[in-house]
């Protein structure tokens, strides 16, 4: 095995096959989407750039506190006058329309996503955008079936939902947030991430094509201050956030004492456990998918490989061999496996944590690949000889960096897997079904993949234990996060919540 040449050249060279950007009809600048129209923001603007080339894509408005106020007011009006009064079946029809429009414009959205985010087109085309359509299609069908959501008869929408999403799956996270909110009868003010606002703004055009009533969805672009103004707005009834644990903590503090219902989908440091009876070929593919999918910019990434000691050398060798075949480069190239790191800031963080890994004694290996001159790039990297106390085994790196640890017994694997304040996801690789069931029972994580990794589906609840956040998105559980029980119990809770608001 070891004598296979690790160079990444020869028969693996591919001719460039870039997806054309001609399909895009981008504006030079984008305003805020408030009350059904694009309007100028009053907070200035910033340029969104392609992380692969550092070239400017478009000028994006920054929503000031006053703009956020307008957006929340528009959402409130739309909730009171239109959306909460509309029949569930009509709300569903709008969502079905949106799902179809996303499918119709799928290629355009995929190109825009890869351009703005840096992820390989094969991922935006085959994973992100199809899941976006699936998410709207799934929740569309719920809109007139809310009595079956698990909250009893006639559950009520909460009102205005403030939603703040991250840059790693810009359009997909938008779908995770908007689809269940609208199905349940809420209206939305959504803030896309600062570095990836483009597809949310194209989505606003789709909403116009769908003729969605004005104000039902409002999109305010900007940085952290815009997001903070949104979640702190007193006329917001629900806060949904996906992002870092540190920001999640601040949001949990900001909504304390209010009536706001909250779901937080935060960081992770998932263990991917490979037992010695695992199908090794599939496991190696799963490890690669687990940590190098989307450049490792995945909250549920399998960033800690726990491999049984007896197969450690074999797995690591095969992994290095496989990584040598990955192609890093132009995100729009259909052959590309590893795209660009989303931002300079994130690249710096990945670099400094990786350097720390070396300083703390772990052995670093990076796939040999040519790094383009411009843009932000980081070669797929593996650390072996990592101890449980090492920083790279504890902190979320959010990049293409895998820490390899070993174990001898299932009990040790479970103890190491659970030895983290996070609890978002985990992977188990074994051919023994009874072992998988027993281990899955004892892992403290919200999503567990057995002999697979990084699978997502609108019917499947997603969310974490412990400091990975609370609440679930997806499935019936994700719908419940946007509803209150009808009748007496919710009225009761309203009485107390008012007291908190007055504090």
């Amino acid at each position: 095995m070891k004598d296979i040449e690790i160079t990444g050249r020869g028969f693996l060279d591919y001719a460039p096959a870039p997806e054309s950007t001609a399909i895009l009809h981008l504006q030079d600048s984008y305003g805020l989407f408030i009350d059904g129209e694009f309007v100028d923001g009053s907070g200035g603007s910033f340029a969104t750039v392609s992380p692969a080339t550092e070239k400017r894509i478009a000028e994006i408005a920054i929503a000031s506190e006053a703009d956020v106020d307008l957006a929340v007011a528009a959402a409130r009006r739309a909730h009171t006058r239109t959306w909460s009064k509309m029949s569930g079946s009509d709300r569903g029809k709008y969502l079905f329309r949106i799902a179809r429009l996303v499918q119709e414009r799928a290629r355009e959205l995929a190109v825009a996503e890869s351009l703005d985010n840096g992820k390989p087109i094969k991922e935006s085309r085959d994973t992100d955008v199809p899941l976006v359509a699936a998410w709207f299609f799934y929740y569309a069908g719920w809109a007139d079936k809310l009595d079956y959501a698990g909250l009893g008869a006639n559950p009520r929408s909460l009102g205005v939902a403030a939603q703040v999403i991250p840059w790693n799956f810009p359009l997909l996270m938008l779908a995770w947030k908007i689809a269940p909110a609208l199905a349940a009868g809420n209206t939305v003010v959504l803030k896309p991430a600062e570095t990836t606002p483009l597809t949310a703004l194209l989505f606003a055009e789709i909403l116009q094509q769908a003729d969605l009533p004005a104000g039902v969805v409002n999109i305010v672009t900007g940085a952290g201050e815009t997001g903070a103004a949104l979640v702190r707005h007193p006329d917001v009834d629900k806060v949904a956030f996906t992002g870092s644990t540190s920001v999640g903590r601040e949001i949990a503090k900001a909504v304390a004492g209010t009536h706001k219902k909250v779901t937080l989908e935060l960081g992770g440091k998932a263990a991917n456990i490979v037992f010695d009876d695992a199908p090794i070929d599939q496991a190696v593919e799963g490890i690669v998918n687990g940590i190098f999918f989307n450049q490792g910019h995945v909250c549920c990434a399998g960033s800690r490989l726990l491999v049984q000691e007896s197969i450690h050398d074999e797995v690591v060798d095969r992994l290095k061999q496989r990584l040598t075949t990955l192609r890093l480069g132009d995100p729009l190239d259909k052959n590309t496996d590893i795209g660009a790191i989303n931002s300079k800031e994130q690249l710096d963080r990945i670099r400094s944590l990786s350097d720390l890994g070396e300083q703390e004694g772990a052995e670093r290996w990076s796939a040999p690949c040519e790094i383009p001159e411009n843009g932000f790039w980081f070669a797929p990297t593996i650390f072996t000889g990592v101890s449980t106390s090492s920083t790279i085994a504890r902190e979320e790196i959010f990049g293409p960096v895998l820490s390899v640890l070993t174990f001898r017994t299932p009990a040790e694997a479970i103890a190491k897997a659970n030895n983290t304040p996070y609890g978002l996801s985990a992977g188990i690789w074994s051919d023994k079904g009874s072992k998988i069931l027993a281990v899955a029972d004892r892992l403290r994580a919200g999503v567990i993949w057995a002999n697979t990794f990084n699978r997502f589906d609108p019917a499947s609840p997603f969310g974490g234990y412990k400091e990975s956040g609370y609440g679930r998105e997806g499935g019936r559980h994700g719908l419940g996060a946007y509803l209150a029980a009808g009748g007496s119990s919710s009225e009761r809770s309203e009485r107390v919540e008012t007291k908190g608001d007055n504090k």
Partner: protein
Amino acid sequence: MTRLTIPKTYKLYIGGKFPRSESGRSYEVLGADGGFLANASLASRKDARDAVVAARAAVPGWSGATAYNRGQVLYRVAEVLEGRRAQFVQEISSSEGVTAAEAGRQVDEAIDTWVWYAGWADKFAQVAGAGNPVAGPYFNLSVPEPTGVVAIVAPQGEASLLGLVRVVAPALVAGNAVVVVADEAHPLSAISLSEVLATSDLPGGVVNVLTGSPAEVAPWLASHSDVDALDLAGAGALEWVDLEIAAAETLTRVMRPEPGVPERSLDRILAFTETKTVWHTKSLI
């Protein structure tokens, strides 16, 4: 000549044992008529932390028990409580100043609450779980699991036994361990309930009862990083927003205050669960 009675020393209930407060402190519990009833232990920060340690140690056993077993243990609590009904009626009426009939109704409702929640132990997962029809060759199952250690401020100032049972019983159903701060003014029935729990096959440490000042103890529980969930049911009169902010530091799940005695509800069971979704790959045949 009447017999001289033996008054009970009311202590804390931590890890299945009845220690005094490590602080050596106690406070006077007065009856509704203003007369002396007992000196209850005034729990300290250290007692609260000891209780969390005991609760954490009890989580694997209790959450690992079968749902059928947990249901039987909770039902057993009702059985033992029924047998000591008279004692609770006497304690409640002297402490809360209600008639024996009213106290009796409270005790009956507390017993029935244990029975109601006992029945949920092997059913809530069927109601709240799901088999998810994902678009691929996977068997995908969502199951609610216990959150872990739940710290609770029991309802204060009314129906001391029922208020306590209505917050403790639902947290136990899924397999959580509990640290509860009892009704400050009427703590006696909480300690007597601890005696019931201690003789009901409930493993030590699954329920830990602190008497004393919620205002003093609750902040230590709210900020404790080994507390997974915080039920502020009876914290409405405290600075509970500060407690929620303290809990946010470790993303502790928070249930906000509720006036009066909470109703029986499935929501109270599910509030202290985490949904785990497992994707099992089907082989291609």
